[in-house]
């Protein structure tokens, strides 16, 4: 009864785009589809939508093959953004809806409702070319949902949006989820995935690396993260004596320590207390998706992404070499990991 993607293979000439992708999306889920650029996300989506055909494998929704599904099952927000530049917004949206058989009167009403929701009702009569990029993206989102599809497939829906518009689009996502729609989207913004997605799939070079509920995927490496704040030396030099730990964020307020699989995170608390440190914060958490992604794929998820919304976009720190403690080169420099947990971690802090 779910969206089943089974053993997809696709080659373009000599390039292998998909090499046996299999995962499943449950109805009503918000699903994050993660991968670096060129990993095969767009190809998978296009195959699901039957815009192109796979060499092997199949996609089905509620038991029906995607090649037999009516087109209005799907709403698609392609990565390649585009509207008819010289057509008015309302007119082209009504046109797109008509291609799905939506009567123009109903479509018009829907268009106005959505423009209202996006706080741009005055754009109905404007030509698309007069709109800013972010506003064009809103129009495209409306184009994807106007025919009331069961499954919304969105390729990088947040790319290029400013924070205000990211929030508006996020609200629209939740609205669609509340209406019982299934949402599949790709993004490089892991905080968005952690916040919105029930389940995720991570692919790289056409292969599936991880798939499952977001919480499970975050735990799949077995590593844990400890957030530890102490009064005194924030560099925590004594940690060097505890095996299987590595500081991934050294902050003045608190530090984040990655604890290897098999190590007890609570050992850190005991060690700190034994040393007589005054603890202001202690929290055990799962690694962020960014961590998992880097562990699995070897690069940062947004390595090639330019986005206005991502809090780290401005800093633009490229992935660097080995971090402190001789970590493998795939790991991110320590300064990066913290933001994935948000600026104010809400987990309970154990005071001493």
């Amino acid at each position, binding site marked *: 009864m779910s969206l089943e993607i089974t053993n997809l293979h696709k080659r373009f000439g000599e390039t292998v785009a998909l090499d046996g992708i299999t995962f499943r999306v449950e109805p009503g889920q918000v699903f994050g589809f993660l991968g670096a650029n060129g990993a095969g996300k767009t190809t998978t989506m296009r195959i699901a939508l039957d815009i192109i055909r796979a060499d092997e494998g199949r996609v089905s929704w509620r038991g029906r093959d995607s090649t037999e599904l009516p087109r209005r099952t799907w709403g698609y927000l392609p990565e390649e953004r585009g509207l008819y530049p010289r057509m008015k917004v309302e007119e082209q949206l009504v046109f797109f809806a008509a*291609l799905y058989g939506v009567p123009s009167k109903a479509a018009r009403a829907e268009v106005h409702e959505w423009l209202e929701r996006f706080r741009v009702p005055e754009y109905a009569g404007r030509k698309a070319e007069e709109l800013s990029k972010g506003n064009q993206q809103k129009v495209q989102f409306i184009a994807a949902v106007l025919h009331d599809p069961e499954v919304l497939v969105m390729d990088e829906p947040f790319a290029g949006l400013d924070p205000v518009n990211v929030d508006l689009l996020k609200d629209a996502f939740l609205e669609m989820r509340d209406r019982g729609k299934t949402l599949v989207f790709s993004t490089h913004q892991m905080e968005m995935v952690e916040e919105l997605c029930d389940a995720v799939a991570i692919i790289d070079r056409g292969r599936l690396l991880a798939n499952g509920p977001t919480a499970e995927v975050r735990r799949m490496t077995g590593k844990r993260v400890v957030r530890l704040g102490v009064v005194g030396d924030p560099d925590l030099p004594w940690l060097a004596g505890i095996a299987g730990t590595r500081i991934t964020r050294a902050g003045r307020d608190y530090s984040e320590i990655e604890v290897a699989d098999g190590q007890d995170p609570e050992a850190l608390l005991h060690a700190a207390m034994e040393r007589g440190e005054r603890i202001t914060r202690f929290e055990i958490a799962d690694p962020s998706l960014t961590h998992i992604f880097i562990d699995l794929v070897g690069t940062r998820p947004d390595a090639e992404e330019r986005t206005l919304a991502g809090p780290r976009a401005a800093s633009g720190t490229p992935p660097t070499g080995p971090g402190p403690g001789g970590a493998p080169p795939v790991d991110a420099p320590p300064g990066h990991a913290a933001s994935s947990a948000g600026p104010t971690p809400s987990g309970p802090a154990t005071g001493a």
Partner: protein
Amino acid sequence: MGPNLRNTLVVARREFLVKARTRAFRFGTVLLVIGAVLVALAPVVIGWIDRQVITKVAVASAAELAFDPVARTAAVLNAGSEADHPAYDVKAVAPDEARQAVERGDYSAALVIERPATGSDLAFTVVTKDPPGGRVPASVQQAAASIAVADRLDRLGVAPGDQAALFAPATVTVEEPTPPGPGEAAESSVEFYTKMALGQVLVIFLFMAIILYGQWVATSVAEEKASRVMEIVLTAATPFQLLGGKVLGVGGLGLVQFAAALAAVIVTLLLQGPVASFVFGAEASSMDLPAGLTPDVILTFTILFVLGFLLYAVLYAAAGATVSRMEDVNSVVAPMSLVAAIGYIVAVYGATGLIPADASWVTLLSFIPFFSPYMILSRYLTGDAGPLDIVAATLILVVSIVVCLWFAARIYEAGVLAYGQKAGVRQLLKLAFGRR
């Protein structure tokens, strides 16, 4: 209504409405209607222009002559025109004023007649700004020759009365090798030239329509690719529906323009009589205006227009799908425009007689799909092709359209999603016809 037809019509409707609103389309339609009215009025216009142009010629005689050189010049110059609408206005001027009169532009030419010595032959000078071989100098030279002969006869003692008989024009009949049947009237030269002009104009219209609308289709496809709206549309509609809708939409625009032009032509033809009597005065009723645009010509043109457009439009659409940027559209449609131009040029030259319209290679070309719309039309108008030839050419066209549609749909399907990479012909064919 199935989604196939629905989507094709939805796409066609958008294409039609968006293009119909453009200034280029409206302006083009107005121009076309004006052009069509002028073509329909061509016989009247040509007749009118013919009557308006009166060439003024001065005759300055310094010699003693037994006859009036002015009257004789006028008789020679106006020999070919109707009695009450002379083409030349001949006046006498003083010999010393002739040059200034031509210089001032009062006359197109002046014939100066002198006798160098008593009893000698006359000497003539034609003063004109026209080149020596031009129509007016040549005609005036003929008049001079006639005057010279008349003067010699006079000096030989032939009385002017007898001269009239000598100068009386001979009776000459021009005939076709196969004389017209009992019911048919011989084709007048006016009719012949009207047909020729009409053939050329219609072939030009057809050529322009096919190239222009074909380009629209290609541009429209490329525009969707360039603006990246293609992927949204492709989620909702199949490439085949898109292709069909585009061709239908632009074809509909073409038909609207054509219908507007045709309506203008029919109204003009209906009003031709009154217009003619207004222009020519009361005697117009006696004038036999050749009706150039007969229903069979209009029908043939319509069929060839629709089929010719379809044939080229599907290929233009496929061509448009192979490029990602608008700038590349022109280069990719150039080969097809060239093929269209070849058929057009042969057709026009055939209509004017520069290429024998009944040569076997012309006949053969007129059945080849990419040339046939123009060539069979041209040959039909000159009378070299009959209704059966039209039917044969039409059938061949229909079959080729089906083949081209299949071919174009494959190219289109492969092309519309091939972004960025500049697909070569081989790569594209592989994408289009290889395993998918």
